[in-house]
């Protein structure tokens, strides 16, 4: 639950009094043009950025005071962060598995490597992989602790349509099997329409509209979510 969340950098108000709640097991899309405050919001939800005002409550715990306990149940993927390039896929998963205190780590790693079709690369250094393979390894790392809350920042960027579709299936499958809560920031509107139960539209640090994709399309009198996005971004 996000309560009155704001972030001000000197004179710039990056996030302005956000309030929203994500129910357990829901996939919520966070949309908005570049610089609208999505990354800052995600940063505050992960405890990377200290809010100027308001709070982030995860499972009833304020992340500011319970950072470790909350982060044990969360994970994150973003194309802007990478895993150590000189470590193999298996080594990276071992490191992060231990960091998150994963039980039966060996089995978990095998399961993820198989699920993401990485068996033949598991002993290859992460830096030697293609961008699509790296992306799959990052997603495997993001699922290593079976997070109750998963934050995805453009999870299928740099993937070809086939692999992108495969990854979306894995996200859907993970969400339904684990009843995980997912916040998805993406510029791929088809992806958002396919995966998300609800969508929040951000602009200039505020949520200016939210709802089910179909409802938003009808409400704004557009043909699809992309047109809604463009209307809001340019309006």
């Amino acid at each position, binding site marked *: 639950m996000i309560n009155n969340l704001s*972030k001000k*950098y000197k004179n710039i108000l*990056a996030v302005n009094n956000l309030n929203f709640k994500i129910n357990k097991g829901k996939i919520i899309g966070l949309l908005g043009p570049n610089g609208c405050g999505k*990354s*800052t919001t995600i*940063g505050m939800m*992960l*405890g*990377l*950025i*200290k809010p100027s005002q308001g709070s982030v409550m995860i499972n009833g715990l304020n992340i500011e005071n319970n*950072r*470790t*306990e909350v*982060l*044990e149940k*969360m*994970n*994150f993927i*973003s194309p*802007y*962060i*990478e*895993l*150590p*390039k*000189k*470590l*193999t896929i298996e*080594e990276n998963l*071992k*490191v*992060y598995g*231990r*960091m*998150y*205190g994963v039980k039966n780590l060996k089995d978990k790693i095998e399961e993820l490597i198989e699920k993401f079709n990485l068996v033949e690369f598991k002993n290859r*250094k992460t830096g030697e992989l293609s961008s699509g393979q790296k992306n799959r390894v990052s997603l495997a*790392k993001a699922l290593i602790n079976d997070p109750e809350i998963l934050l995805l920042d453009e999870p299928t960027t740099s993937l070809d349509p086939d692999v992108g579709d495969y990854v979306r299936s894995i996200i859907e499958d993970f969400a339904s099997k684990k009843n995980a809560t997912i916040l998805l920031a993406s510029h791929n509107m088809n992806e958002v329409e396919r995966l998300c139960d609800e969508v929040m539209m951000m602009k200039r640090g505020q949520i200016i509209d939210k709802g089910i994709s179909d409802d938003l399309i009808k409400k704004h009198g557009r043909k699809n979510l992309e047109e809604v996005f463009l209307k809001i971004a340019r309006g």
Partner: protein
Amino acid sequence: MKFYRIYALFLRHFYLIKSSFPRILDLIYWPTIQIILWGFISKFFTMHSEFYSNTTGVILSAAILYDFLFRSSISFNMLFLEEIWSRNFTNLFIAPLKISEIITGLTVTALIRTLIGVIPAVLLATPFFGVSLFNLGPSLVLLFLSLYFFGMTLGLLVVSGLLKYGPAFENVAWSSLFLLAPLGCIYYPISILPDWLQIIAKTLPLVYIFEEVRSILLNNVVNYSNIMIALTLNLIYFTSAVIIFYAAFNAARNRGTLVNIGE
């Protein structure tokens, strides 16, 4: 603190080192070169200096201990810089790691990294130059401990600078110890320094450590007060550095720089 999280942090760097022969070579190469160079300088002074005529290896012992300090400080910085260079920084800070676990993990890993480099050099000193650090006796453990904590203190301060100023602070990481070396009186007694500089030098634990090394090797006298002063100063500086690190982390969270520090 949870051991498994500290171990995970260690494992991340262990895998990095074990997978790369050039990295292992690099760790061993510089301390060895330093010891060989200072070994010959030491030998020359032993033969031509009145001050060092009664003993061998004072300079070489100081060089080995200084290298241990230098390597431990650099190792700590390197572990942190590796995360920035590999753009893995954010992954670490969104993991359920406590700051105290990060500091402990880096401190332990830096020690192992340092020992990989320094142990072969120390072992070489005996057959090549007839110098053994063990001549310093049981106080060697306390001297090493003191140097190690001073190395960690410098490491923490540099890492705090990296959190505050970003990768641009990297150059300071390499040069921090060179700034303090002249004041540390590693190879010469403190009396060489001008009076006003002696006052500053006495605020550093290095002076007491290296005065003690000379005292043991030249006069066979163990002065525990020097060792205690060095340890006390180290405790004060290390505690201060930990506080500064926490402050730098919180400041980075305030400015939002943890998200994109590697960019």
